[in-house]
């Protein structure tokens, strides 16, 4: 399974949650598959989906799912100790780990080699770290939602991209629509 197939699979579970989606193809795919006002699409700033998600979860009570990539977590490793030490039980970090920098042409990441993101997250002090296969993502996500405990899911999947249009929505429109959904 590749990332877009996972998105198709878990879209019904994401639909009712606040979602912060990673820059590039992840946001473009989610936008194409199931655009929702509860989705915040990152159009720039690689690596900060988990930080934005944690800030949002700490600021209000609704559940927040940050969808990140292995490359993006590698670029902002400092996020994991911050998450571990500021527990927000309404926060789920879903790392789609395809072992490559998908948006830039599938160059390999270290997460696809020797480095285990789940082990790093645990070493940083994060509780409830779950590693799963792509096919199990929906189940793992539902378990995390049901547990109401801060959870990090590392979903190991194949690399590969589909053709998707870029997001042409204005960033202020995305942000305003999202903030309206947060308070709805």
């Amino acid at each position, binding site marked *: 399974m590749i990332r877009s197939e996972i998105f198709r699979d878990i879209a019904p579970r994401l639909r009712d949650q606040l979602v912060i989606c990673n820059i590039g193809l992840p946001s473009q795919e989610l936008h194409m598959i199931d655009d929702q006002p509860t989705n*915040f699409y990152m159009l720039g700033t690689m690596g900060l*989906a988990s*930080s934005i998600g944690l*800030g949002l979860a700490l600021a209000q009570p609704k559940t927040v799912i940050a969808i990140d990539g292995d490359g993006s977590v590698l670029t902002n490793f400092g996020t994991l100790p911050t998450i571990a030490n500021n527990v927000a039980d309404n926060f789920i970090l879903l790392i789609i780990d395809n072992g490559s920098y998908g948006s830039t042409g599938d160059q390999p990441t270290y997460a696809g080699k020797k480095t285990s993101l789940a082990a790093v997250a645990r070493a940083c002090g994060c509780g409830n770290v779950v590693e799963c296969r792509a096919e199990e993502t929906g189940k793992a996500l539902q378990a995390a939602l049901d547990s109401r405990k801060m959870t990090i899911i590392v979903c190991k999947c194949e690399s590969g991209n589909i053709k998707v249009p870029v997001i042409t929505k204005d960033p202020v429109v995305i*942000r305003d629509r999202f903030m309206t959904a947060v308070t709805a």
Partner: protein
Amino acid sequence: MSINKKIVDDFVANDVTFITTVPCKQLGSVMEEIETRPEIYHIPANKEDEGMGLCAGAFMGGKRPAIIMQNTAIGVTINTLVTLIQFYRMPLPMLISYRGELKESVACQVEMAVHTKALLNQLRIPTYHFHQQDDAREFDTILKYTFMCNKPVAILTDATFWEGS
């Protein structure tokens, strides 16, 4: 009243209740003061761009955020300031320790100081420079201005300013 208390009082009066910090020697006392306020959620960040991500999320969650950092962080955060804070039009007061100014003892700090205002100007970030303690009288107004216009705003605070406390 101590300058640290005044600054944090202004944060609280303006409902700034989510503050992320990356330490600097000059800012130690203001961070200590923040820790004493139950109204403020203080979340230390490991890097300033991470801190700005936290602030962006908190803002979208209905909180008024702020970041406290050193001017060297301008070099770290240009992309985040431009493609997140400015692109999505988010307010962000940045209380910045202006290292490398008069009374600096570490030469390397001057290397970033000489670029600080030029970079902020290039980014079209409204910038205020606190040099004398009296300058902090405007802090309350600067916070109101920041949340009125939904922009990042820089408040540079130099060694002379902090020495007066």
